[in-house]
């Protein structure tokens, strides 16, 4: 274990914190309605932070600093890099939308987004229960504020309220689980907890109680059944830019936190928490997919689709350990990591198109609003259909390889339930294909309701096209990102 007392591992976080504060102050002086200065500074900050993280992750080394409270490893580095990029892309897509809805009267959107990202960074790097919890709270508190940003908008306010109440409950679960762990092992440090649990000297019942609460809290953050109630309402009710802010990058942080807690801390208990994940995964795929069929609101449909996609992520996480043998762990967890990264990439583009079609006074969130999009704008219809085919898991798009890797991990684990579970998962993805195809049908086969062409600023057009192209390109050449995830997870598990 390399101990490093310097601040080097935390430079990106420090930069982010300083810049977020600076942007908040500078924004007081900004007069332009588009808030170009603070927007530009936010972009610059995010780009630099993403580059710093990528650079650190590329070196492939693991550092601990602040007395083991913070870890900097390739997995964390890449997830932070992608989280920063996702936030950047979200702001690019969301700025025109926010400006149209009077959400840029102050610069809160930028500041809160940067603080939310800081929260994700802390969650991803935490190697200590309290640090993880602090990061999580920073993220969720800023998210509550973001959802409620349109305070004169009844639906958004209701969504914020629901989110806050349920979110607070989930944080309570998590904290309770953490206190159990602390009580049982006498430490808040994840590495120490691991050693204590591995020794087998700890009271199993107390540990299990803690694990149950931890898993429940994490399940809430992922939004898997039965802790999914907030997802549809918040996705639908929040302003679309905030929906993307919540539905995109934070999934990466939730994944990292799950890995830190369940794998790095509690791998010896894997046989126990894997069983819980099986139940969560099956329920999520079933309910997410079935409920999505009934939706007419696209944001709500994508919310249920998220629930089912998270079920697939859990499939990777529950395939790591078989009968106490961790040989397949790296393969399994890296498949989940690949899944979640590509999921975020796809979600960004899908919501990017929704944001683009929304105009002043028109939300464009009903599926019917997309009628005949292909005739109005073949490019954006193309981007949207690439996203939907990818979410449905049709090759040659990246979503297919994500599903392939988690299903491969599950079969390779050789668990008794593996084959039935895989068949269940593919049948569920068949149901999924139905509702994704329905949106494509509306875009391509139906006649348009309006003849207005879709216009977008150059920045949105370029980023959205790149985003769509990347989903296709990663579908044709997925090897690089897969190898990156595999290396990152191997390094993390090796320490």
């Amino acid at each position, binding site marked *: 274990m390399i101990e490093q007392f310097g601040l080097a591992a935390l430079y990106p976080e420090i930069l982010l914190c300083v810049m977020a504060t600076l942007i908040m102050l500078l924004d007081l002086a900004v007069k332009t309605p588009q808030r170009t200065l603070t927007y530009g500074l936010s972009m610059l900050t995010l780009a630099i932070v993403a580059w710093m993280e990528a650079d650190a992750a590329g070196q492939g080394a693991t550092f601990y600093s602040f007395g083991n409270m913070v870890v900097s490893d390739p997995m964390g580095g890449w997830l932070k890099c992608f989280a920063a990029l996702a936030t950047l892309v979200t702001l690019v897509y969301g700025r025109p939308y926010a400006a149209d809805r009077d959400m840029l009267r102050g610069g809160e959107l930028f500041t809160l987004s940067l603080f939310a990202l800081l929260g994700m960074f802390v969650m991803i790097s935490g190697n200590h229960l309290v640090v993880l919890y602090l990061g999580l709270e920073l993220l969720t508190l800023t998210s509550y504020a973001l959802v409620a940003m349109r305070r004169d908008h009844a639906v958004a306010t209701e969504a914020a309220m629901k989110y806050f109440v349920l979110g607070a409950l989930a944080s309570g679960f998590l904290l309770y689980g953490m206190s159990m762990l602390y009580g049982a092992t006498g430490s808040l440090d994840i590495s120490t907890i691991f050693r204590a649990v591995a020794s087998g000297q700890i009271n199993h019942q107390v540990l299990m109680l803690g694990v149950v609460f931890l898993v429940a809290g994490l399940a809430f953050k992922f939004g898997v059944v039965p802790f999914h109630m907030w997802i549809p309402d918040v996705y639908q009710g929040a302003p679309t830019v905030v929906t993307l802010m919540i539905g995109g990058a934070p999934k990466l942080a939730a994944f990292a936190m799950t890995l830190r807690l369940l794998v790095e801390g509690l791998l010896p208990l894997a046989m126990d928490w894997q069983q819980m994940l099986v139940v969560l995964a099956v329920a999520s795929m079933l309910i997410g997919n079935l409920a999505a069929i009934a939706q007419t609101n696209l944001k709500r449909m994508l919310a249920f689709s998220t629930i089912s996609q998270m079920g697939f992520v859990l499939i990777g996480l529950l395939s790591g350990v078989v009968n106490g043998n961790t040989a397949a762990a790296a393969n399994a967890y890296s498949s989940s990591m690949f899944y979640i990264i590509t999921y975020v990439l796809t979600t960004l583009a899908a919501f990017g198109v929704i944001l683009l079609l929304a105009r002043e006074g028109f939300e464009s969130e009903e599926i019917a609003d997309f009628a005949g999009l292909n005739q109005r704008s*073949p490019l954006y219809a193309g981007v949207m259909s690439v996203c939907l085919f990818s979410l449905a898991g049709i090759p040659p798009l990246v979503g297919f390889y994500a599903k392939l890797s988690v299903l491969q991990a599950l079969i390779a684990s050789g668990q008794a339930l593996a084959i039935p579970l895989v068949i269940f998962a593919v*049948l569920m993805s068949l149901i999924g294909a139905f509702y994704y195809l329905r949106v494509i049908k509306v875009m391509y086969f139906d006649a348009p309701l309006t003849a207005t062409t879709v216009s977008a600023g150059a920045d949105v057009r370029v980023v959205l096209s790149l985003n769509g192209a990347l989903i296709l390109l990663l579908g044709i*050449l997925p090897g690089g990102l897969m190898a990156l995830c595999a290396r990152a997870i191997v390094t993390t598990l090796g320490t």
Partner: protein
Amino acid sequence: MGLLSLAIWVPICFGAVLLALGRDEHGNAVRWVALIGALVSLAVTLPIYGGFEVGSAALQFVEKTPWIDRFNVFYHLGVDGISLWFVLLTAFITVIVVIAGWEVITERVNQYMGAFLILSGLMIGVFTAMDAMLFYVFFEATLIPMYLIIGIWGGPNKIYAAFKFFLYTLLGSLLMLVALIYLYNASGGSFDLIAWHKLPLAGNVQALLFFAFFAAFAVKVPMWPVHTWLPDVHVEAPTGGSAVLAAIMLKLGAYGFLRFSMPIAPDASHEYAGFMIALSLIAVIYVGLVAMVQQDMKKLVAYSSVAHMGFVTLGFFIFSDLGVSGAIVQMISHGFVSGAMFLSIGVLYDRVHSREIASYGGVVNTMPKFAAFALLFAMANCGLPGTAGFVGEWMVILGAVEYNFWIGMAAATALIFGAAYTLWMVKRVYLGAIANEDVRNLVDINAREFLVMALLAIAVLYMGIYPKPFTDVMDASVADLLQHVAQSKLPK
């Protein structure tokens, strides 16, 4: 870049360019780019035929580079005698479809042409992929352009047809995916098809794999009783879509039986041969009878396709040289003949906008040139000696008689049904007195349609009169396959 890569990627690149070309004001430019693209794609497949070493069972024009390291997936292409003709057939049919859609398609021309070119490249990919994952990616990717082709340019009930096509075939493919992942783990982490052919597998595992592959390929072929999607889809698809679907996409399924089911699970294939033969005979006889009562020309040809593909699967599962070679010849000839049948119906539909047999009568009086071609294709569809349809069916029946007289007998009676429903349709549509005003106002085919018909007619006659070039290339590969399938793979 090897020739096979060119055959795959040239049409896909042209298709991508067409998609980028944009709106319908440049309709003519788009059509010419599409035609050039299709012709260049056909041209790059010709050296594959020219350079193919006849008499060798080995894979030729092999390209192999790592593709996805983590799963040990290779970009591994190759052709042997079994797949060679399908590469050429696909490129040829694409040219025909582009010409056939020239004036008919007026909306979103670039997307129509682009979809067909991309589809062409993907289907060539299926026929040349020697890595199971690469195969699966191409196999599944074909669904996307076909879904859009049916849904955008299809008939009144197109949306139902597009969904039925997509979901029905996706269900089968997903079960195959489970089998592929299982084999990947069982073979110690490889998607190499040739390694899988040698992998010993226990009997019950082989049976499960056989049925997983059956789910994917039987739906695609389609075999009775999972054929129900085909008539619905054919009726609603645009002419070009029907032609490609019948001519090539159905063959993807049959080809899968040869590449996956039989060599990977030979013991299960023998075990369930009776089951497969029974389903094939039902397709040949029962579906042939169903075809006879159809009122809709496209539906009739769709059912006739199911019956003809029944001959193909029958030929496979009697495990004889004649049977398998005959089945492959039947696949190629059906590619020409069914494509031609659907394009003929398209010619009539463009003019009268009806597919009902009852809307026609006496077409020969107003469209003599067209009726001559249509009659030729109809004869080929019944398997008249001297046309493409005869060779394959005759070989399969001969093989079947050798295998079991009664099976051969049953298959041979189906030829009578085939003749009956085809000729009866010809009588009602083309012959007799002019039935109504629509038919009286018909104009005979123009130069473009004549070109399409003539190209197909040449192919149909050439294959019927001189089938040697078709059968010669496949002999060695078929013998090799059968020798492989005859050996048990059960672990000792």
